[in-house]
């Protein structure tokens, strides 16, 4: 859950660049189809649901069949309805966390990159500790402080991920700053905000976007884990993690509830990861001019 994918070494050289582009596009398409399908489900759930969310008239654990596509849960609520609202919570959790991670992470990373000497050392050591400190523990503390809501979970995941993003941003910025033309610009008196906006950000965003896409998948997984532990969106919200936790008791007798949310969760994360891979291959400057 720490998202060390951030620093995956870039892949080989120019030789296969064209091939990578093509494969990248294919990966991107598959990823978009998978993630898009679930995003669509989430979108539809805003306007239409097969049954009202708190309709308990379906009977206990009916199993898939007529009327109820996936059957009902132990309270008689339609499982497909819950899976749909769950997809919305998953997408919200992913987007929210990534937004927090992006804003805080990039800011911290840029600051650390401009800092020098012991300050730089301290900041990066701090980030290292934060990265090793799992999202879950941070979330538990935040939940203890703010009570278990989706907001608390998203905040915790976003904060934990911002450390990963910050570390990546710091390295990327340092790499850009080391370039001759930037050094020239800085010595000639360009203010550092202008340096950041004019030179640094345009150079680092493709790598950042790829990483943020990976963080999205990790955030979705993290939220499911928290909800499983009862630290995510409180019931009766149908978070996938919570659905899985509730269905665990009836795994062998009524498997639909314990399988459907898990499968969708896996599909969503794979989809987003494929998008990230595809983006890396088509977008990431590191694959074009490696180790400049």
């Amino acid at each position: 859950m720490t998202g060390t994918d951030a620093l995956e070494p870039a892949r080989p050289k120019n030789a296969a660049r064209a091939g990578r582009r093509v494969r990248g596009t294919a990966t991107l398409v598959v990823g978009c189809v998978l993630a898009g399908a679930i995003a669509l489900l989430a979108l539809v759930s805003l306007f239409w649901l097969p049954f009202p969310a708190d309709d308990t008239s379906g009977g206990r654990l009916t199993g898939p069949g007529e009327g109820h596509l996936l059957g009902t849960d132990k309270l008689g609520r339609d499982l497909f309805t819950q899976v749909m609202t769950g997809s919305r919570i998953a997408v919200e959790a992913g987007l929210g966390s990534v937004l927090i991670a992006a804003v805080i992470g990039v800011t911290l990373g840029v600051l650390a990159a401009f800092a020098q000497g012991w300050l730089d050392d301290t900041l990066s050591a701090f980030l290292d500790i934060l990265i090793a400190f799992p999202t879950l523990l941070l979330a538990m503390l935040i939940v203890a402080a703010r009570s278990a809501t989706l907001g608390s979970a998203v905040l915790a995941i976003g904060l934990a991920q911002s450390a990963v993003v910050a570390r990546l941003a710091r390295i990327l910025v340092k790499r850009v700053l080391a370039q001759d033309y930037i050094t020239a610009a800085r010595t000639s008196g360009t203010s550092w905000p202008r340096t950041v906006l004019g030179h640094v950000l345009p150079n680092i965003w493709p790598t950042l976007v790829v990483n943020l896409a990976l963080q999205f998948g990790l955030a979705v997984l993290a939220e499911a884990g928290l909800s499983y532990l009862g630290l995510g969106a409180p019931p009766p919200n149908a978070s996938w993690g919570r659905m899985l936790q509730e269905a665990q008791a009836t795994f062998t007798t009524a498997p639909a509830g314990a399988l459907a949310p898990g499968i969708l969760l896996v599909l969503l994360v794979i989809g987003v990861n494929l998008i990230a891979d595809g983006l890396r291959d088509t977008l990431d400057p590191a694959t074009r001019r490696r180790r400049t």
Partner: protein
Amino acid sequence: MNIKKTSLYATASAAALALTLTACSGSGSGGSASGGSWDKNATVNIGSLYEPQNLDNTAGGGQGVTEALNGNVYEGLFKLTDDGKVDKLLATDHKVSADGLTYTFTLRDGVKFHSGKQLTSDDVKYSLEKVIADDSQSARKSNLEVIKDIATPDAHTVKVTLSQRSISFVYNLSYVWIINSQAQNLKTTEDGTGPYRLDKWTRGSALSLNRFAGYWGDAARNQKAVFHYYKDATALNNALLTNAVDVVTSEQSPDSLDQFKNNQNYKVNDGNSTTKLLLAFNDKAKPFTDVRVRQAVSAAIDDKKLLESVWGGYGKLIGSMVPPTDPWYEDLTEVNAHDPARAKKLLAEAGYAKGFDFTLDTPNYDPHPTAATFIKSELAKVGITVTINTITPDEWYTKVYKNHDFTATLQEHVNDRDLVWYGNPDFYWGYDNKQVTQWVRQAEEAGSAAEQTELLKKVNRKTAEDAASDWLYLYPQIVVADSKLSGYPLNGLNSQFYAYDIKKKG
């Protein structure tokens, strides 16, 4: 992780007993009465969700320490049997003076502590003083503060003088463990007189008891009893399904019961519980100051349907705070029964024809969120809008219980004989009826059990009519066991679980 389940250890400050003075041991606890041969040296593995915090019940040991040690390792002067009677245990006789203020207890002969020391009246005096000491965290402390003086005329006699009459004094003594006055480190070790001695406690995992060879009464029917602790019901049921445990002390959800019901290797027992789920109004906060509003809300909610969806056929409706095992039980489900038309009428009379809004503080663990969702949809039908505010057990204690800062809340109350809290106007739900307060006090100072029962029946009816709270339902008490087992307790009154009568077929 599951947020730890914090139940309410409400205590009965006034409670009477039908004192049934039967022989001390061997009174039949339940369990499937399968005959045949059983293994005298069996190990019985018991699965539970309630691990002790420590082993001292006056130092915050919690529900788990009662379950594991009460009656098994420690014994009182009296014991509460599984069917709710109070039997003599370490006391063989007791006399009450005419004014009801002096109790003289005669101690059983030949009782030895696990350390080998003989039981004397000094140990009894020490144990009683431990419960009412300043630093005691015993849930029974306030009940026993009526003790004015403890004298020990000789090694076999204890004489207790009370500052006022207390008809539930003997009942309350069944919660007081008699401990060796010389014992040390009671948080991690023990020195009691029970049929088992502590073998080992591995925190986070298990607590094992071994048969005590020097026990004064009938020896335990098994060599070893091991309590295995789990954090959630699923892990507990999996343990039972894979034979890691032989019996589950109390099922907390009906989800897995189908797996056991249709399997002849297991027996599902439906016993009597004392745990009630309450929709507790703040009777001092608008609009619940108006009795008609409370009645309307009670009548608007279909308790039967709620019970069905939470417990799927198990459990019971009682319509009041009193479970059938309390002597003053009466079926009051017809008072404020489900009747949406009447609810609407009552609301109109109270000036809320168009309904109103309120916030329901809901503990974040099951079944509260489910019940809250259900209540919300039921009350919407009569025009009342509910906002569900999910809170942690910790927040509940601070916000609701201590600060009374709430409009309505959900909470489970686990103890028997806890109707008497309605006689305390300072209790969190703020029910303040002078007549009820007086009845409760008179009941505690009553001269006979019959008189006490009569008074508490009046309290019960009055609070039910006033809809002091809405008593949604009584939980079931479900013990699931391997069918090789017999002699286990079925009712788990006040969380105790006597293991010594459990027989396991070889």
